């Protein structure tokens, strides 16, 4: 291995480490969001539905919500039927909920387990496959 190749490899490793640190910081922020969601789940339900819940924050004019996120959630609903509860929240109508859950942009989706514990959060568009994977992992 010549010196140039070694330097490129070293830089690749450095880049991976830097990206890893950034990803870890992002993960930490998401963990904080999940904690906030856990503390505010009572704002959504009087009694828990005892099944996984998909909480979907949207707004009427959010373009990616209409074109990508809504169809993905419809797919999940069709596939899992009564096994999952979908709760859609319009952040413009319920800014208090969006604030309490720490939602800063739409679409944002949370996956809650049957005990009402927020287990996953997706900032931005989440594909149906990803949501399904998260629900099945509960």
């Amino acid at each position: 291995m010549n010196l140039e190749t070694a330097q490129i490899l070293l830089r690749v490793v450095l880049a991976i480490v830097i990206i890893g640190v950034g990803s870890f910081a992002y993960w930490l922020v998401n963990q904080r969001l999940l904690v906030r969601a856990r503390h505010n789940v009572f704002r959504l339900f009087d009694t828990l539905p005892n099944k996984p819940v998909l909480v979907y924050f949207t707004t009427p004019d959010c373009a990616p919500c209409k074109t990508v996120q809504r169809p993905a959630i419809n797919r999940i609903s069709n596939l899992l039927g009564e096994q999952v509860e979908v709760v859609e929240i319009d952040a413009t109508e319920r800014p208090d909920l969006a604030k309490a859950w720490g939602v800063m942009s739409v679409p944002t989706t949370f996956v809650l387990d049957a005990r009402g514990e927020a287990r996953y959060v997706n900032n931005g568009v989440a594909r149906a496959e990803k949501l399904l994977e998260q629900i099945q992992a509960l």
Partner: protein
Amino acid sequence: MTQTLQKVDHSALKVNQLFIISLNILAFIFNLPLLAAFVALVMGIGSLLKVPGFGFVYKNVLKPRGWVKPDVLDDNPEPHRFAQFLGFLFMTAGAVALFAGSSVLGWSLVWLVAALAALNAFGGFCVGCAVYYWLSRFSLPGFTKQPPAGTFPGMKPKVGASR
């Protein structure tokens, strides 16, 4: 106080950010200060023309082919332009440092720009916009816009463009 918002296509901004991130990482890996300078140049041209520097790729390639869908929101374009200009300044400083032989400073600045672009692209938070809104609180000339209603300064607006 009410203000008139404009339609801002956030997909164009995101494509711009993704190009900046990718090219900066490639510049670092292959030790190409010239590529970092190229990114600075494109961001500078974008600032002059008041458009996202790499937005031409979105406008001419990605959007017409339907590979990236528009995400048009009611927003202020000025903070995004300011953010790009700040990025241009950091990238230029980074490129100059690299050509002057100060690798650590140069690559740190290049990584800083990539990190801030990533925060915007993946986290929806525009640090440059937040700085703009912070400066607007001091009534500085040229910094006149306020964040869209209900939007935390620097965050992507939750409300889409009215049609």
